[in-house]
């Protein structure tokens, strides 16, 4: 169970929140011509990295505000949360604090009990 720090309410239990997928995906401007590829990527394509990930969450059972965060998908740790109108943090800031449980491979499970 995660603790998520809502930028409006403070740290709360994960059960109060809902995940909203990748953050900083820009919706194409409807007043301009949008190509099939551009629109298709907006609707259907999302990144799914192992490691640091910009992500959207909403405090569903709380203030109902949407906000962004940086989450490490391999440890589930949420490193920072920030309001929608705030600048997205540079991922390099977190490179040194990222901890992985056990000699994580680049892809795949890191479910080891002994150091590899």
């Amino acid at each position, binding site marked *: 169970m995660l603790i998520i720090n809502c930028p409006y309410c403070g740290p709360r239990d994960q059960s109060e929140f809902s995940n909203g997928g990748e953050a900083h995906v820009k919706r*194409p401007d409807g007043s301009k011509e949008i190509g099939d590829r551009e629109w298709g990527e907006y609707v259907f394509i999302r990144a799914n990295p192992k490691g640091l990930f910009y992500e959207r969450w909403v405090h569903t059972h709380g203030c109902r505000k949407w906000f962004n965060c940086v989450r490490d998908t391999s440890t589930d740790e949420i490193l920072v949360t920030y309001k929608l109108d705030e600048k997205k943090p540079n991922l390099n800031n977190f490179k040194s604090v990222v901890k992985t*449980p*056990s000699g994580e491979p680049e892809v795949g499970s890191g479910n080891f009990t002994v150091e590899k």
Partner: protein
Amino acid sequence: MKSINLKENQFIQFHQKISFKFDGVKYFGYKGDTIASALLRNNINLVGRSFKYHRPRGIYTCGIEEPNALVQIISEYSEPNTRATIKKIYEGMEIESQNRWPSLENDFGSINNLFSPIFTAGFYYKTFMGPHKKFWKNLYEPLIRRAAGLGKPPKDFKGISNHIHHNVDVTIIGGGLNGLLAAKSFINSNYDVLLIDFEEQLGGIINNSNKISLIDNTEPKNWLKETIQEIEDSKNIKILKNTLVTTYNYINHLIAIEDRFVGSKPIEGKVNSTLHKIRTGHTILCNGHIERFLSFQNNDLPGIMLSSSFEKYMCRYGLAPSKEPVIFSNNSNSNSLVYSLIKAGLKPKAYIDSRSGEEIEPNLFDLIRKNDVPLYTNSQIKGAFGNKKIEKILVEDSSGALNEIKCDCLCLSGGINPDVHLFTQSKGLLDWDEKDLTYKPSKPFQPTITLGSASGQFNFDNLNSDINEKLKTFKVKKLDVKLELNTNTKYNIEKLWEVSPQKKSLWAKSFIDLQNDVTTKDIRQAITEGFDRIEHLKRYTTNSMGTDQGKISSINALGIVSDLLDKKVNEVGTTIYRPPYAPLSFSAIAGRNCYEFYDPERKSPIHSWHLKNGAIFEDVGQWKRPWYFQINKDESMHDAVQRESKNVRENAGILDGSTLGKIEIKGEDALEFMNLIYTNSFTKMKQGSARYALMLGEDGMVKDDGIICKISDQHFIATTTTGGAATVLGCMEEYAQTEWPNLKVFMNSITEQYATFNISGPNTREIMKKAFPNINFSNEEFPFMTFQFHEFNGVPIRILRASFTGELGYEIYIPSNSALKIWDNIQSLGKEFGLAPYGTEAMHLLRAEKGYIIVGQDTDGSITPIDLGLSWMIGKSKKDFLGKRSLTRSDTIREDRKQLVGIIPSNKADKLEEGQHIILDKEIKSPIPMLGHITSCYYSSTLGHDFALAVIKNGHSMIGTKAYASTSSMSTTGVDIVKPVFYDEDNKRLVS
């Protein structure tokens, strides 16, 4: 095995007798006894039959690690798989042994032991996958189903569990010597501390063994009493007893289960367990160690027990399970058992050690010699033999000669392991200790501290410095405890995993997992077959996959595998220890979220009236909605629905529509926002008018529909489907915040604030006039798709002229608190006009006759407005709205998409069914192209036949042609594809 009672102690008082039943026979134990200690007191050691081979099994341990002694507690809803070594007895307790038929002594399933050569590693996989499918179905499956397994499922389970949340700075798991010392350091500090112990009494090793003789120059028992008192008096420390930490999640989140009825029968209706959910800053693991066993032929015979468990029975329960056990060890941990036996005036029948005489501790040597205990050094047990109990063992001594020793009990020690289960759950890493031959915690992943034997410190020399060093960050009091030991030894162990069998026979078994009946031969076979990765091997052999997760044996398996593969144990690795540490019941996990609290029931303000008037309810999301109303008990659903719908067409009907989602949208930019959310354009819409609207996903598929009332450009009220209300509000909020934060707009749910009555039918206007005499309901004053605000008897109401039935209709919105009164009033006024309530089923029938869709029934997330023939609802001049661009994707403009059509049987007497496939051929010959399927289907007494809505490929251009509907009996029904409108196509009745 003949046991004797020793001296009383603070845990067991011999004057407090308790009676209980085991397999129907009455026995006596004492208050404080576990089922296991009570059974041993009565010289019962055969307590169950094994999982696969139905071999007789006894009590192997004295704690949570027990693999064998699992019993069914008949007096507690027949709770199965209860560890007899933990569960305390109480007066009148009824216990049954498991996995045997007809009786424990004469078990038919033990015939499996004869078949055992076929039940080897991978048996299930090979049988499933192999060519002998017939064998599986006719022989193996029935055999296995009857014979395999643990206890039977509980009956009429009524356990209640509470959940409690904690938020603390430090959690200490384990209240043994190290846990108590750690807690002592935190006394009166500024930290909130939880001290959790699985037992009723704190003390761990102090209570369970005679290892320690003095603490700070006082008797350990007295020291314990004082220390516990100090900890209890400290305001910042809370102690949870009888509480087992089962789970160590990310971010120091722990789950622990507390048994609220230790030593007494759970009272029905009372909370019998508490699930503690603990969020902690630091976790200090002081959960000790577990002794492991050794593998040799028949190492599962009743009468074989771990040596530290034997000692625990002596120290904790005042009971020696046998007067003269044989001890077999490869390490120094069993020294204290020898000491305890002699202290109690007993002595081992023999002491057998695989180590050489030089390696054996001098103290032990002296003790054994002084008391004339037969000593075998450099020796191994080749096998244990006996009928349902151990009778003799064969010992190979240092000269290689075989010695037979008669005995009724054998105590084993294969070494000790830190209990690393929770540590690895926390994602901490282990490292193999070549000297102590066990995995020890090395790198914590979370703020986790391990102390004492849980950290792999099997000696007491560094007790103070280790605790002081590891708790340094907390800046708490430094400890200086003086410890004196009875058996002053350093932990010493010699490698021994398995003794080679004396006789090589197909039936000779040396077990590596007692609960799952895995033998060392199975491990060998699995490796020969290529399952040499430890995770594969575990699944192939089912080693350590029982409810005990191989607590006393999994390390032995790793040792055997590493020897076979000639690899270091660190390279072999361990399988992952997964939560929970020990099984916990579903009822504990569910807590209060069960029965009526599982999912909230939502009821409309009219619910009480429905109950009194014969409503049969349907669940729509969380809502209870009247499905139909029974005028008498004999009326069938079909008759009720036809009566209700006919009455709407001929007179008038009233539906409780309060469950419809209602959202109020306000703000300077509300108009622009609504134009972006819905497909329709609201710009030219007049104030006070309403519009049927569609909401799409960004993929262009219909997500929800509803009626939008425009009060002004800055104020709208939208209705949603009953099930979609929360999603639609969530979607509006999301887009308002994330995509269009520049728009000044606010929205709120008003679903529960207003009740809604849908009145429709030709007589409706007369009823409305009578109910609301001050309002002009003429077509000119109150046209179709307009709404008006009024006040009625001081209650503000809104009336919308709209209809979902195709008849003249009005929707009345009333504040919920005043709704029932007005509903009652309309009921009585409406009688003379034939007004009758109708339910959701009649509503569905009526709307289908008009071809009105239900989102989620006639659409399934792959249907666009164009597919539904609702292109007119798309505001083409609008630059943008949700999903607009998707409506011109190559896939959405395909002509052969599935489109909404009407279906009627060519022969009007034929029946149709929801879900039927529409095909072109009369004969079904597979493969056959399927055009689509029927989404809604009803019998209409207005039409006099069945009719249906369907989505079929290229449907719009197929209108006017014939096709077939497949039936479940592989035949077909001829159907006509028609426009999806069956009644009053030009809407004369709607606007009448």
